[in-house]
Every structure is written in C-alpha cells, then in structure tokens.
C-alpha cells in the first residue's frame, strides 16, 4: 500500500514543522526517517496516522486522503507512554483487540512469549524496557498495511533493542506492509532499512537506498547523515 505526501506543509503558529514536503513510501520496504530532534519526523508520522492535518498539500494512504479514520489501515507506535497504568499487560492486549479489527491475537500471544512479557503484570510494575516491548507487541500484532514507529529504541538498553530488531524482522509481512521508522539513532537501524530519508528543519534534504549509498559512495547511512548535517549547518 502506497503512502504519499504531496507538497505538504505544516505550521505550528509561525513556525514551520514541515515545508512543502513530497514523499512516497512503497509496500514491502522499511524506511528510516532520520533527523535531529525537532526536525519534523514525528509530525510526518502523525500526519500519516491522521492525528495531525496539513495546512497545505495532501497526505494519502492507498490513494485515500488521510483522516482520523485511517487508523484502520495505519498502526502507529508513539514515542510517548500511552498506557493506562492500572491495566495489566493482558488488559492492554484485549483493549487493542477490541479497538482494531485487524488485531491478530495469535501473533500477540507469540510476541508476548518472545518478548518475555507476563500477561498478569500491571503496566505500572513494568520497567521502561518492558513498556517499550509492550508497545511493539501491540503495534506488530496488527495486520495493518502501514506501520509507523516513532523512536522505538529511545531510552532502551542494547538487549531490548536487539529483541525489538528481531521481532520486527520476524513479524513484518514484507508482501503487504510498509514500515516507516522515525529515529535519530541511526546505527541501530541501518541494516534494517531499505531507504534512508534525512529531514532537517522541516525539509527533506536527502533520500538514498542504503545499499546503493554504500556501493556508489562507499559510506554508511550514519556517515552520510553526518556529512549532510555538517553541510546544512554550514549554510
């Protein structure tokens, strides 16, 4: 399912969060949306999720203009803590299953085992790492054609990061899903990505296929990102 942004701008007051951005995301690929804090990564994801509307331009998922109802097709992992703290892990799973018709209970059970999460535990008793894992379980259990992950690794230790990478690779359906990961932690996700997109102060300043970048320019995404940033800050 194709996701498209056409000449999209978003202002918060006088400040531009996105300036005339056009992007296309195709099925079966993992995209990295990379940029420093405040560059417009989260705004881009929220627009695709129908949580924020553009001031100008169009956002389309599967040729349908995005509204709040797009959550049927788009699974969105927020960077924020979004759980009811009195819920148990099991309550949270059931709540998600009741909200989303594409929620796959079998997949959720398998993911809970993989992630070593206890169904009976209260959310407030979970460590930060386990809350991060639970967020991923909820997002990956949906069979939605678009998966948006906002900073899935942020504040998590290397063991948790590894388990998240493994679950992504195990549970993404590459024939049917499009995955967009927003992060400033580039090293962790480079081997996961097909395409890297650099966003800076609301502008898309580069998009590259990860392997082509290595093949033709002999640099990793991180090196490319750093040199692009240095150029931008020089201007």
């Amino acid at each position: 399912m194709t996701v498209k942004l056409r000449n999209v701008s978003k202002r918060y007051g006088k400040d531009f969060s996105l300036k005339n951005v056009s992007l296309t995301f195709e099925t079966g690929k993992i995209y990295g949306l990379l940029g420093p804090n405040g560059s417009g990564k989260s705004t881009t994801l929220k627009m695709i999720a129908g949580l924020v509307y553009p001031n100008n331009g169009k956002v389309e998922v599967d040729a349908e203009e995005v509204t709040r109802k797009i959550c049927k097709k788009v699974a969105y992992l927020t960077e924020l803590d979004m759980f009811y703290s009195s819920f148990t892990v099991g309550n949270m799973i059931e709540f998600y299953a009741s909200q989303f018709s594409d929620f796959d209970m079998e997949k959720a059970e398998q993911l809970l085992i993989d992630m070593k999460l206890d169904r009976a535990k209260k959310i407030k008793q979970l460590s930060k790492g386990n809350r991060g894992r639970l967020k991923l379980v909820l997002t990956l259990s949906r069979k939605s054609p678009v998966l948006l992950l906002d900073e899935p690794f942020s504040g998590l230790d290397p063991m948790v990061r590894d388990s998240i990478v493994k679950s992504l690779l195990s549970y993404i359906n590459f024939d049917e899903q499009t995955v967009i990961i927003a992060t400033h932690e580039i090293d962790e996700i480079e081997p996961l990505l097909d395409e890297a997109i650099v966003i800076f102060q609301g502008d898309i300043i580069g998009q590259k296929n990860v392997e082509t970048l290595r093949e033709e320019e002999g640099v990793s995404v991180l090196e490319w990102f750093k040199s692009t940033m240095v150029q931008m800050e020089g201007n």
Partner: protein
Amino acid sequence: MTKDFQTSKPIYIQIADHLSSQIVRGEMRAGEKLPSVREMAINSGVNPNTIQRTYSEMERMGIVETKRGQGTFVTENEQVLKALKIRLQADIIGVFVQNMKELGFSQEEMMDGLEQYFRREQE
C-alpha cells in the same frame, strides 16, 4: 545476533563474503541447504531484501542454487567450490601484500619474511 558491518561496503556483499568463507571452511557443505531468507535476516539483524540480494548474487556466481519450492542450496559443483577457495585465497593475499607495501616492504622482503615465519612455526 546483530553483526557489526564495515561502513564502506554494501551489507549484502559482506554477508555473501561471510557465507563464502563458511563454505570454504567446510562449516557448510556442498549440497547443504542455506537458512531461508527470513531466518537469515533474523539471525543477522538485516533487512530481508538485503539477504535476498545476497542469495541472488551468490546464485549468479554459481556458489548456491535455488530449487523451486525447496530453498537455496550450496552448489555441488566442485570446480566452482575450488574456484571460490582460490578466490578467497587471492583476496587474503591481496590484503596482506597491500598492508606490507604500506609498511615499506619489497617483494623479496615479504618472501623472506614468510619463509622465516614458516621455519619458526615448524620448530
């Protein structure tokens, strides 16, 4: 386990190199089945499209064969496997010679050095 990759080389080539040396070392035998693309992706923490490219590239080189509906297998063609072994040898020698040149050794000095090394090893 997620492996560390060199920054300047495509990841699909690094994985192909790794598999090639496993084959030459005999850790994977002629005719043996390779892990599926998905398994390989999970084990190495790499995008499945990249692994697919690794397998395609190795197939192009004749090192592996894909059988419809069955998976990807190490070739049983001994000539290809012999050629692969010789290619890996040439790669390692290439790196060695380059390093020696950078340290300022001549061809003769390298040969002398090697001879001395083997003599000491035999003692």
